[in-house]
């Protein structure tokens, strides 16, 4: 039975790294490790979905593979790709290599994770970006942790190839820890969902926000009261609502970095101030209409 356990405290064998997971998320990760199922993680943008897998790999000191899914991604590409064009060109040049498939074989992130001799961590990021059939094409690989390179003819494999670890079919010796993130833009098929565990990362509470910011600041120790004031102001701004994109964790971290860099004093973040009077407040937003709505909200607001 798997004895690995994730603690989400940000401690690693290679030194501290900035990711803290809340207890529910830690429990979900450990469930996924024990039950050997992929963990599907959803949540608002900027809440740390994508960095979770890396943090697991760093804490447990495991090889880490990542696969950033695009709208043009095919499930096959995550397993392996064959550079057919180069093979065609080589065959024209008379290169003897072109007779064999192996020199043109490249493994994708999922393929590498399944081939790995030891346990590994695999991130499949934004799986809902791809075509609707994409998750279904991965079912067999996720279920049975094996895949086949159809283009390889077993009789072609030389002793060298076998020694280098090339085979026609690969089966994972140990189940990799798979973290799949989704932005919930498209509905995922039921058959795929049933094979995954699910966790929704909520927007962090103000205390956790302060922790996350303190760890993530790129400069040295930021003033704790400054961080606390920034977190409080952010929570107030978020409470206004109606934004196209609400300021989230990453915007908060950027803002605190800017405030710290310019030596802004905590008195400039007083609760009585209008939001539009806060220093560098525009860095919290990504849409002009959100900036305008704050400016309007501030000017007409009576506290």
């Amino acid at each position, binding site marked *: 039975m798997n004895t690995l356990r994730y603690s989400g405290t940000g401690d690693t064998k290679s030194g501290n790294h900035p990711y803290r997971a809340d207890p529910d998320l830690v429990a979900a990760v450990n*469930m996924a490790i024990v039950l050997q199922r992929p963990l599907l993680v959803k949540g608002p943008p900027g809440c740390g979905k994508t960095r979770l897998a890396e943090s697991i790999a760093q804490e447990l000191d495991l090889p880490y593979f990542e696969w950033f899914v695009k709208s043009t991604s095919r499930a096959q590409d995550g397993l392996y790709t064959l550079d057919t064009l180069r093979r065609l060109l080589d065959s024209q040049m008379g290169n003897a290599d072109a007779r064999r498939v192996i020199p043109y074989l490249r493994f994708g992130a999922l393929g590498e994770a399944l081939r790995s001799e030891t346990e590994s961590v695999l991130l499949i990021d934004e799986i809902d970006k791809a075509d609707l059939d994409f998750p279904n094409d991965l079912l067999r690989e996720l279920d049975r942790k094996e895949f086949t390179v159809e283009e390889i003819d077993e009789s072609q494999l030389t002793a060298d190839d076998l020694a280098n670890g090339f085979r026609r079919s690969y089966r994972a010796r140990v189940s990799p820890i798979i973290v799949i993130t989704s932005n919930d833009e498209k509905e995922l098929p039921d058959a795929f969902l049933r094979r995954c565990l*699910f966790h*929704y990362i909520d927007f962090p509470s103000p205390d956790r926000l302060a922790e996350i910011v303190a760890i993530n600041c790129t400069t040295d120790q930021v003033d704790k009261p400054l961080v606390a004031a920034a977190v409080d102001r952010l929570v107030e701004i978020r409470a206004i609502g109606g934004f196209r994109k609400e300021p989230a964790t990453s915007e908060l971290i950027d803002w605190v970095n800017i405030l710290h860099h310019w030596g802004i004093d905590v008195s400039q973040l007083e609760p009585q101030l209008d939001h539009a009077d806060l220093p560098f407040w525009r860095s919290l937003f990504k849409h002009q209409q959100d900036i305008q709505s704050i400016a309007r909200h501030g000017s007409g607001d009576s506290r």
Partner: protein
Amino acid sequence: MSHPRQTFLQDAYTEARKEIPRLGIEDLIAVRRGLADGLAKDRSQLVRLCQAIWAKSPAEQDSVKDIVESRLPTPIDGPTLAQLFAAAQRPPDSPPDPTGTVAGNPPITEIPTTPESGESEPQRRNAETPAPPAPVPFMEYGETSGQAKVAALPRVRLADSPHRTHYDLVGTLPVAPRAMRQAFRTLRRMGRSGLATELDIGATIARIVRIGRLDAPVMRPPRRNLNQFLVLVDTLGSMAPFHREIDALLDALPSAGFTGMVRRWFHDIPLGHVYKDAALREIEPLDACLEPFSGQPVLVISDAGAARGNTDPARARQSAAFFAKIKIKTPLAAWLNPVPQDRWSHSTAAALVRSGKIAMQPLDLAGLKRSIEILRGR
């Protein structure tokens, strides 16, 4: 030999299946395995385990939490609960826990820890006998001989369980949103369009054969869903009671990934123009609206007078003319009526159906699927 009973976990699972039809027996087995592997040592961890395995969205997580908490026996003290979970973790055929008999409680229950017992359970449940008087074995997972034994808890009646924290007072939609989304996903017309970014191996090889050598690879555009989709929605007035279903339907549409989707609103009949917004403010002439959708699917959602319940010949004529106009532009036109079919009789809608001019479908799962078949051109 103790009789098999519904355990709290099975109760919760059965209840959860009503709200989440996707659940299968493997989901129950997975929770049992999780318990056996020690993933849940107390009540809240058990709830979390069930949430992780059974729920796939925040709304489902809330439902699962309520269901499991309402089925868990009311305050069990810590030591007893921990002991029960410890028992679930022990492999079968191990000797019984020496501290198993708690407070001298009678009948010992058997708790298997292997998944196989879960599979034969549905059959055993059918052979269940009615409840005997208290005290009865409570924590039972079914029987196999030689399993770990642990003391039983007194049976807790469901009436004593804590109330659910959320009640669905609004009721369910005639078609579940998931079913709507999945139905619309089938409305695809795959074709190649856009920039040529994919290597066309067949054409490249053909080119090599023709020229005698490779000079440049032949590229082709990737496949995507070419469907553009126009939805014309009747709103306000007699359509007001159906706004929830209509909203759910309109929300389900974008998930199907159309290259272009347009929504327009009208009231009763679009006499030559439709509106770009649901509040009926911005006008667009009907012809201009239909223009880009030649040969593309067009869906009309309207009660066609069925909600009023009378037959209005003028409205029937105008509706038929409106639909005919659409059909000139595209044969892929369907009409969805949110009023249930048994209420159509003696109304304008029935007259339209009788005349054969409009293939109207009711807004339930079968009707939705039939309309989508029409929109696919079958």
